[in-house]
């Protein structure tokens, strides 16, 4: 479960001045559902997700993730969250096994639990072939699988994905999409950010459209279609963000 209440993040930039990257955003993500955060580049998706993952502290407002407050209990929040983004790379000089074990240990797993978890994830994600090879020599697909194993090592209740398919080839991207669906089946709370309309249509139970840091529309695909009188996600998006969305999208 994720509950964001009036979440706000203001950056102070020397050149650009005050940037309201996330502006008074409230939403709820439920277990067994995928919440899609749809927005153009610079809309504030990454910042929102970093706030939820406690990588950043909110300027105002707050959120609870898996029942923990992001400001008061950031370490417990992180222990309940799996965070996967294009910007979360792996240590090149470690092997896949060492990587999974390292993050397992940082999540407080015992050596025995780590070993069991590595074995299980290797089975599920089909890692055996390269488990003891160094990540720096991996293909994108192998890296992606290892990243997923790293995200899941502590079996988190909440999963946060920040544009995870960016820059991936079709097959690897499909693997990710399948994996995100799996998470839903297992009853995880999933939030998934993207700027790709088709991904939202394929994956998400609930969509939040974010624009200039503000959540401008929220609902299921059907609800949004009804509200804007169009069925196509792209059309919905354009109408939701209004006139100035044309250039942004």
């Amino acid at each position, binding site marked *: 479960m994720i509950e964001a209440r009036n979440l706000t993040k203001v950056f102070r930039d020397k050149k650009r001045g005050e940037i309201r990257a996330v502006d008074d955003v409230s939403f709820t993500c439920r277990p067994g559902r995928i919440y899609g955060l749809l927005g153009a580049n610079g809309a504030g998706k990454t910042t929102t997700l970093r706030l939820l993952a406690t990588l*950043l502290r909110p300027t105002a407002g707050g959120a609870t993730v898996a029942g923990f407050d992001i400001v008061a209990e950031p370490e417990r929040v992180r*222990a309940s969250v799996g965070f996967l983004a294009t910007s979360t790379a*792996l240590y090149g*000089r470690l092997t896949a096994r*060492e990587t999974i074990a390292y993050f397992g240990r940082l*999540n407080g797993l015992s050596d025995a639990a780590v070993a069991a978890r590595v074995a299980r994830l290797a089975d599920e994600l089909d890692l055996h072939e390269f488990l003891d090879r160094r990540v720096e020599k991996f293909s994108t697909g192998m890296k992606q699988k290892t990243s997923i194993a790293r995200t899941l090592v502590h079996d988190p209740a909440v999963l946060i994905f920040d544009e995870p398919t960016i820059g991936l080839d079709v097959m690897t991207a499909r693997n990710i999409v399948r994996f995100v669906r799996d998470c839903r089946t297992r009853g995880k709370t999933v939030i998934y950010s993207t700027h790709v309309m088709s991904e939202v249509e394929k994956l998400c139970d609930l969509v939040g459209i974010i624009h200039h840091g503000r959540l401008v529309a929220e609902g299921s695909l059907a609800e949004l279609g009804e509200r804007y009188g169009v069925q196509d996600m792209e059309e919905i998006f354009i109408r939701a963000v209004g006139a100035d969305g044309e250039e942004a999208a």
Partner: protein
Amino acid sequence: MNGQNILTVYGKELRDSLRDRRTLISMIVIPMLMIPGIMAVAVGVSTKMINKARGEVPTVMVLGGDDSPVLRAALAADPKLHLVRTAANWRQQISDKQLRAAVEIPAGFDAALDRGTPAEVKIYNYDGELRSGFAVGELRNFLNDYREKTVTTRLVGRGLPAALVKPFEVKTQNVAPPEKVGGNMIGGLIPYLFILLCYTGAMYSAMDLTAGEKERGTMETILCSPVARTDLVLGKFLMVLTASLTAALISMISMGITFVVGGILMGAPRMTAAAKAGPLPMLDPAGLLLVLAMVLPVAVLFSAVLLAVSLFAKSIKEASSYVSPMIILIIIPAMMGLMPGVELNARLALVPILNIALVSKELVSGVFHWQYLALIFGSTCIYAAAALAFCVHLFNREEVLFRT
């Protein structure tokens, strides 16, 4: 703070670093080769120079003195001088270092000596040039002897005792233990090398663990694990400290090996001779160990400062543009410490790095001022703790971690 987590982070960083060629080079290879390299060059160059200079009979030109055959004959008879034919371009020859020195005999010197009227002999040399200096020394020795002989002959001629002009003799004798002589010559340089290696050994590691992680995109991955920022930075700090101390320790071991191997190769008597001559220091072993102990808080200070500064950078390149010029901040106080006349006092004992350079100079020559040692160790520990606290503080600031 969670000790288990700190150790987990440290263990991973250690494993990671040991697989990184650049960290290994700065942490192990450079410290291993630096001291033997410097020693070999210093010993090789200076012994060769001194031996060559000592071994050669200096070429000297006599100017004038055609009417003073007695002095000329005496000069020619001195086996320690090699007289060359008089040439007009003698100044040029001295400048070109073909001629070591020239001696000018005034007209009518022999006759003036017989009459007892004062005369002036001039020596021309290349000031500051080692071999020219030896030639001047030989000429002075010769002329002093010649003068004394003249005086003695005159006294005897008048029936007076020779002791009249030499009421007493002056002799100098070195009583300092040999390590003090060597220690003061170059010994100050050794601990300075440790300090420098402490810094360069930690430098790459610090950049790799912070700016390097940002550059490679692993910083965000590790930050979204539940490990507390403080544990994370302390684990990283331990790794940088390990690199720093490893560099210092390896250079120390390598120096020990250099001395043993050098001793066997050169033979002990030649080692001692070289030490007396200056190029090779004789160091007090207990003092050397104390230097290493004093370097410990310095390594903590360097590691924390390096970590903090490189954490601020977004890439290794940026980090290195901050961290490389900072070497100057170490070299200047250390150089000041090497200057003659700068001696340790209570005020200087509080100046970081300079204090270590000064006390090290004393330590390797076997002088132990315990109250200064305590003051230096204590103050450096405080600076180190402050730097580490600052580093932890920075690591808790998102502006630093997510700088755009």
